[in-house]
């Protein structure tokens, strides 16, 4: 599948934003954060900025962005529509929280609002994952593991951002470091499991199934099906959108890079910060940037490694 940069930016930025929103809301409910509404306001505002940048980026790949409002109507059947509805619904509690924290009024409403924001963040990221997982045409996406990976990566990148903001406000509790490390480890493990799963599956559809033809069906003794003449001399939309494929050896190298950037490098930075207690904010910033790079690589691969059934008509033997 062709990796659209707007969609990669959307899913990684909004994933990190919703992850941060989830953790800020949670530590507000449990009262675990610093006693400063400015910390909570800053973290929530940044999460809203990330989510909004992501949502705006997602409209860049539309042919008619001005009609995007129509996408809220088909939530009964479409995961894309459900994602839009969940994203807009989540703005209400998270936006109110940011406003309350900005104005500094003490109110009993913040805990239930935080709970709604946390639930909204989880639901929205789950819907994003399900847009891909619901497509039967792509075996690398059509897995129950896919929304779990989306949730895991959002939680991990959000946890690192949370630890960064805590450090920026002069706090570096050990639980924040542990949360980041567990989040990163969990996301890396999920991703490794995902890659093992897709490597083990050769694809259940064949070119014979796609054409309803085989050597035997035409009365020949042997042989397979080979493309002779393509329908067009240059790639069409279907080939460009669905036929994009990264070379296998490049994919393996990129998988390693993404695991290093997503897990190994930030984990080392967090361990250094926690052990020596110097340049803590800078180290957490480094960790957050590294996670961002790793997440973009991971999301690019998620598209580039995905094989669409339609490629059977264009020379693939299995998909």
């Amino acid at each position, binding site marked *: 599948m062709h990796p659209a940069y707007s969609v990669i930016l959307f899913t990684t930025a909004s994933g990190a934003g919703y992850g941060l929103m989830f953790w800020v809301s949670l530590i507000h409910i449990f009262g675990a954060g610093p006693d400063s509404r400015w910390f909570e306001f800053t973290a929530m505002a940044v999460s809203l900025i990330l989510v909004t940048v992501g949502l705006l980026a997602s409209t860049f790949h539309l*042919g008619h962005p001005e009609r995007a409002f129509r996408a809220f109507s088909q939530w009964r*059947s479409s995961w894309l529509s459900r994602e839009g509805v969940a994203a807009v619904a989540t703005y209400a509690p998270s936006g109110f929280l940011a406003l309350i924290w900005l104005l500094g009024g003490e109110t009993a409403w913040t805990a239930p609002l935080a709970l709604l924001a946390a639930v909204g963040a989880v639901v929205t990221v789950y819907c994003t994952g399900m847009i891909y997982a619901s*497509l039967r045409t792509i075996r690398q996406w059509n897995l129950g593991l896919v929304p779990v990976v989306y949730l895991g990566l959002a939680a991990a990148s959000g946890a690192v951002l949370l630890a960064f903001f805590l450090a920026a406000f002069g706090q570096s509790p050990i639980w924040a470091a542990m949360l980041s490390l567990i989040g990163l480890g969990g996301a890396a493990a999920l991703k490794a499991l995902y890659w093992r799963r897709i490597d083990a599956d050769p694809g*259940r559809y064949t070119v014979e*199934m796609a054409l309803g*033809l085989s*050597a035997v069906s035409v009365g*020949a003794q042997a042989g397979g099906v080979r493309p002779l003449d393509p329908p067009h001399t240059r790639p069409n939309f279907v080939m460009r959108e669905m036929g994009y494929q990264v070379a296998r050896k490049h994919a393996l190298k990129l998988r390693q890079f993404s695991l290093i950037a997503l897990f190994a490098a930030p984990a080392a930075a967090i361990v250094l910060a926690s052990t020596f207690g110097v340049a803590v904010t800078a180290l957490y910033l480094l960790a957050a940037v590294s996670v961002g790079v790793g997440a973009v690589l991971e999301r690019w691969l998620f598209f580039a490694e995905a094989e669409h059934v339609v490629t059977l*008509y264009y020379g693939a033997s299995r998909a």
Partner: protein
Amino acid sequence: MTTLPEKTEKKLGLVIDLDICVGCQACATSCKEWNTGGYSAPLTDHDAYGADPSGAWLNRIHSYEVGEGAGSRTVHFPRSCLHCEEPDCVTVCPTGASYKREVDGIVLVNPDTCIGCKLCSWACPYGAREYDYDDGVMKKCTLCVDRIYNETLAEEDRVPACVRACPTGARAFGDLGDPASAVSQSVAERGGFDLLEEFGYKPVNKYLPPRSPAEVVDTPAAPILEAAIAQPDGSKVEGFFAWIDQALSRSEA
């Protein structure tokens, strides 16, 4: 509305005979010609006469070699929307622009509400939907909905443009929900099949398989070519030309 109708009154669709399709592309060009001025207008092309031509087409004709040695053959394979009974291309649409008609089962895209997110094309295993980069909306086969009910056309023209154009009669149009229709009967007779049946979208369009050599009716051999060519009649004029022919052949050698 992107939820699918429980039942459609008719199941209009195509039956494509892979035994007699000659891959001439007449259906594809005729489709393009009609639809670039009809419901789907425009069907934009880019660099149409240049080195890297591309564009939105609703019908694509592949050719494949099937099998090796004796009995192997070339099969021409037209590929377009199958107007499935339970397709995800309709249900994934976030706006309701992609829909299946209850009256005849035709799957259409409303070009006024499509946002061009392309998700429907991702959901189609048959590659039947092509995005129009200029128009910013998804294009697909309409089963020539603007021909088949069009009373301003002569009755014989009220069939999809591809069916009207096919010089070998490899394409037929009709109601596949009616077992008495000509298309349903040819499917029953010839063992018509669904593409990627395992996928479960329940295509309405059917394909008729190539006949295997054993099935082919034994037709009398055509008269041998030499017998059909006039034999020399031994006249002086003919002898003269034979002499010139020989002389020229010698000088070339």
